[in-house]
């Protein structure tokens, strides 16, 4: 793929204590595209995702080798401020996890702690724009100050996406963002992922192969801690080059 790389991962090895979870993974994440990470449970795809905004820092005994370059700068360099890194590389989790506050406060939280505005009217605007980008605004604009926990699962997940984009990140990591959602809510999030691609670079971990095929432009297949195959999504799902990929995506025994 002849695109600018937003993130360039080079020879990444990850260990949890004595156990090695990732083996010499190198991958380029193209800017303004969605990259899907697929593979069986325990293959390392979520561990890999968490290396991209240093979420593994907080895991005891986790140790990483190799480089993760965001816009050609090493995110593991000593000078990097991890909090600032995570505003640039946001994350959405498997289960929607809104704070037990109002809808408004959920989205306003990030801009507040990062002091991204001067006047209240600016914050209002950030909240509105974020909720609009997350395709939630029309549904909740009349009840911004109600508790976020009253929203449906699908709405909560889109709220979490709004919260992630409120701090104006460059990259959004999504770890199984639709696994707790029904098909309609899933379709809305998938449509949203497609729209977000205009402004952000997205990386999504999913167990749902059809979802990977639907939302991504690049797909990476992980197996037992190794990156087996990466390719343009259409090509990977019609003519995979590796037998392991073929076996996994067609649902065959390995």
């Amino acid at each position, binding site marked *: 793929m002849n695109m600018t790389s937003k993130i360039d991962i080079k020879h990444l090895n990850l260990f949890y204590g004595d156990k090695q979870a990732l083996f010499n993974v190198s991958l380029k994440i193209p800017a303004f595209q969605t990259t899907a990470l697929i593979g069986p449970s325990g293959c390392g795809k979520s561990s890999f995702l968490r290396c991209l905004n240093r979420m593994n820092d907080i895991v005891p005994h986790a140790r990483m080798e190799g480089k993760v370059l965001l816009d050609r700068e090493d995110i593991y360099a000593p000078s990097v401020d991890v909090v600032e890194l995570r505003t640039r590389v946001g994350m959405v989790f498997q289960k929607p996890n809104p704070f037990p506050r109002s809808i408004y406060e959920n989205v306003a939280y990030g801009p507040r702690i990062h002091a991204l505005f001067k006047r209240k009217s600016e914050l209002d605007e950030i909240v509105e724009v974020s909720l609009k980008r997350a395709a939630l605004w029309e549904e909740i604009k009349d009840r911004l100050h109600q508790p976020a926990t009253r929203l449906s699962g699908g709405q909560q997940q889109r709220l979490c996406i709004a919260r992630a984009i409120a701090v104006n990140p460059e990259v959004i990591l999504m770890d199984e963002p639709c696994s707790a959602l029904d098909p309609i809510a899933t379709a809305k999030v998938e449509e949203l992922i497609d729209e977000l691609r205009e402004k952000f670079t997205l990386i999504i971990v999913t167990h749902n*192969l*059809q979802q990977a*095929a639907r939302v991504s432009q690049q797909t990476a297949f992980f197996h037992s801690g190794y990156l087996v195959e990466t390719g343009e999504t259409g090509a990977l*799902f*019609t*003519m*995979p080059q590796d037998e392991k*990929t*073929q*076996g996994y*995506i*067609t*649902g*065959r*025994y*390995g």
Partner: protein
Amino acid sequence: MNQHIVKAYDEELETLHRLIHQMGELTLEQIQKAMDSLVGRDEKLAHGVIEHDYEINHLETRIDELSIRILALRQPVASDLRTVVAALKIANQVERIADYASNIAKRTLMLTDYPPSLLMEDLSSLVKKPTEMLKKALLAFATYDVNLALRVWHMDREVDEQYNAYLLQLFDIMIASPQNISPSTHLLFAAKNIERIGDQSSNIAEAVYTMVMGKPFKESELS
């Protein structure tokens, strides 16, 4: 290839292969009978061929339905997807070939009004190569044999050459006597149908190529 974790999926794909095989065997039989009816001036046999065409149409419908069902329920990808798409195309092409057999049988019914000629018998050697192409193309599909598919594709040129040579013979006869024009025209259509069997078999070979290689068949890419 390894088996699917879901057994029913394997069974459906096997059924698809079995139906294509069955359709191919029936069609080969139809071609043989149509040619026998023409050369042997056997109207009863010709009627039999025409009447049995529906069986092949029915098999094509079953292949279509099963393919659509697999696409809807299994959402096949990679080699499975390529197999289902190839099966859909090939079923359509075999159905066309069966129509040609039926058309040849229709010519038999018209030619019995005319005296026998050596050119009628020549048609049975003209049909040999296209029939072989069909057999091999179907075998290539069953065994995912891309080299065999390519050999089939190359055979079509020989079929075209034989067809053109046959046409020249027909023209000579027509020029020699206007009385020959009517029976020769029927033979010409029969020969055209035979030549089309070669074309369609060549299309089946192309579908097999795409199924195995995962890319469209392009003549320019052949070495």
